[in-house]
């Protein structure tokens, strides 16, 4: 299994826990989880994966990753 596939699986697992909380809270919850527990490189990799189509990633984690991407872009611009 490739490194990206592993990250995708981890993100999907996280997503499935938060899904029960409804869309808005879930996206926020997943994004916070990734920020708190993943290394910057893992986050960069999953962001890049989404930018390349995000194969295999479920909807909620995909949106959480997009939120991370937007936040890091904003931080870089600031």
């Amino acid at each position, binding site marked *: *299994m490739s*490194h990206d596939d*592993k990250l995708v699986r*981890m993100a999907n*697992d*996280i997503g*499935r*826990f938060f*899904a*029960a*909380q409804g869309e808005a809270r879930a996206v926020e919850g997943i994004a916070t*989880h990734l*920020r*708190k*527990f*993943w*290394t*910057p*490189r*893992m986050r960069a990799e999953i962001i890049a994966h989404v930018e390349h189509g995000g194969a295999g990633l479920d909807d909620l984690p995909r949106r959480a990753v997009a939120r991370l991407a937007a936040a890091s872009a904003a931080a870089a611009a600031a």
Partner: protein
Amino acid sequence: MTLIAEIDYGTPAAQSTTDVTLTIDGVEVTVPAGTSIMRAAMQLGTRIPKLCATDSLNSFGSCRLCLVEIEGRPGTPASCTTPVAPGMSVRTQTPRLAQLRRGVMELYISDHPLDCLTCAANGDCELQDMAGAVGLRDVRYGYQGANHLDAVKDASNPYFTFDPAKCIVCSRCVRACEEVQGTFALTIDGRGFGSKVAAGMAEPFMESECVSCGACVQACPTATLIEKSVIELGQPEHSVVTTCAYCGVGCSFKAEMRGEEVVRMVPWKDGKANHGHSCVKGRFAWGYAMHKERILKPMLREKVTDPWREVSWEEAIGRVASEFKRIQTQYGRDAIGGITSSRCTNEETYLVQKLVRAGFGNNNVDTCARVCHSPTGYGLNATFGTSAGTQDFDSIEHTDVVMLVGANPTDAHPVFASRMKRRLREGAKLIVVDPRRIDLVRSPHVQAQHHLPLRPGTNVAVLNAMGHVIVTEGLVNEAFVRERCDLAAFNEWAAFVAEPRNSPAEVEKVAGVPAQTIIDAARLYATGGNAAIYYGLGVTEHSQGTTTVMAIANLAMATGNIGRAGVGVNPLRGQNNVQGSCDMGSFPHELPGYRHIGTDAVRASFEAAWGRPLDKEPGLRIPNMLDEAVGGRFKGLYVQGEDILQSDPDTHHVAAGLAAMECVVVQDLFLNETANYAHVFLPGSTFLERDGTFTNAERRIQRIRRVMSPRAGVADWEVTVAIARAMGLEMNYRDPSEIMDEIAQLTPSFAGVSYAKLDELGSVQWPCNATAPEGTPVMHIERFVRGSGQFMLTEYQPTDERSTRKFPLLLTTGRILSQYNVGAQTRRTANVLWHEEDVLEIHPADAGPRGVRSGDWVRLSSRAGETTVRARVTERVAPGVVYTTFHHPMTQANVVTTDFSDWATNCPEYKVTAVQVTPSNGPTEWQTQYEEQAQQSRRILADAAD
């Protein structure tokens, strides 16, 4: 230093709050009602002669040596069985009493060998003492009559002997086995003169039900039951109080010594975790410290295919520092990391994470708790606000309903299991949630009310269904929820569990547990009085490990079973210092005291104390380190006291990760499996050789004390200090107490901890600070640490690991009593006699069609790999489920386990792997190859440097 002599009060302390005043030999004494005269006298320092009484056991009144006279009462009652009464006047010494006692002693001695001078118990024998105390001078009966002097000695147990010729049939051993240990292995066979002690059905100890806990040996007043080490080495001359280094119960022991040699380990009565009890590991299995395979010199090699070369400490440390610096220059700051161990002390663990964060300049530090209890941290933190069990062990005394989820305490936490069994014998009810019929489901005088033998991987479904019953039947403790919990979150949870898909009838379909059993268990848990949940790795080691911990916390909050004695949520920790290693900031995202590395103020306090800037981003977890290594970005690892190759899942992947690194440094007692891939080996020291603290499963911080010099010359913490210095990070500690002072200064929940306080109080349970200067036995009493309790939505998600046509069975793993973790220590003691190899338990319904019989070799395969083990056909496991342990490296059970893991913490899913079992005629190719490679890798050059 002298031998610590504990006072034996003869009978247990009475629990009454009413006081009674009486006089004994003219002196007034006040004691709680229900106290025996014997105990009251001892409180005054008056030692009434006794043989059959000891204060760990209920009085029995058989030896008639402890007779006293009571004013106004006829006869000479036994002081051990007679309770005190107000105004009573007792005499313990009169001519009549003296004569009676001498008569009793004469009878005993006439049937006892008179070899005191050469007896191993000489100097530690109560019979000898009593002969002296009653002034026995001659024996009128002669030794010619019928006697037991020719009875044959039983030396079958590797650690103690039973010499019936010396037995006085006081039955202390029998009662210890029943009351203290709860195994009921011993009986008094026959009557009157013919009566004798027998193990099981009059068989040798090793063939009986005996689990070798040592309680009978300790209770025996004579040399009948005695440690072989005492026979061999003689009586000890001094003792030091220390803590067992095996499991999370954290038993206190007196290490009884002759010089630097351990004669025996005796459980310490004042130990607050064990109250004088022990199990076979802590009591007897310490011989590994002296094992010939211990490595005592640092060693180096260029390539892992080279033989090892012994070098000086300077050279070894120099190599570690230069290699780590080179790797960082070449591959970047994040290319190295460290792994702390739950076997190491708080101080050592703290230093390793400090070395990584301040010295390496990254947060790539993780701990073996990753593979066991990391979900406990996450789950309890989210719900209660702290990553720890809520109770002390004593809390079990007040419990009415015990719910045991995915834990097997009689094997993994034996001393606590004994206390639990005692409480169950007193009438507490038991619910067992476990795929396997563990011993507690039915053992002597204990029978679970409900056993929920769920399919592996369905914990969350079953716990949700219990929540469903509690909510829909109106069993919620509404007052508690309203007052203590977040109400909105509760309402959301209540609506969620009440949904039909969480009903027992629906859950029966996925979990295989009859709906009615779930309903009955839920009702009992909610309405049976004080209900306490104890859980183990059968909860955490799942893809929904964290969710299960949350589901447990939900049930406790909904029923108000939190915040007082007798209730609570209690993780049973595997290794001795799992709690401590987590407390000490071993996780890549957390500083000591569970504070996120990204929290600026917290990070700033550590930066100020350590004089280095710290990275605010979380570092790599162990599985991520291995992934990164395979990917070529992670090149150097410092592993203190862990064997990730054997203990972590998916061995092939771990091996590939380690093989891809350029500098693997292993610090351990033995050349463990991980060391096969190491470039530097630093010899470790055992718990007998160093000072420090461990924190047990009840958050109790206890001292370990050095009883002998470190055999490799230095203690583990000194090695970490040396590496730090060589890498340019200044660390100055004269001894581990100064490390604890730094921990206390930087960690609010440890603020009040110091070695001085531990010496004074014996132990403290964190939080220990200005508001709780003597520690905190029970947490969340008035409010939760996080404020209000937080219910979490715990949707059941079936694991991706499913049985298929190719792999139709589910494998689950566990441990057994005599062995510990990867077995590196216990395999090097006589404990192997109880467990020579790992076996695979398989149900007859699965074994039959496969042509598998008990004792056959079978091939166990999963999509990750395959291994061979011997089979044991048994109904302990359900059809469709197989079970094995992981104590022996040759078994390589983790070759089979996969890389699926808990969603929140990546704790591996050890408890569910889809497998196939087929007959086999011997080890697999990988096992044979591995064995060869391991042997190659353990070569040490004969021509050693100094």
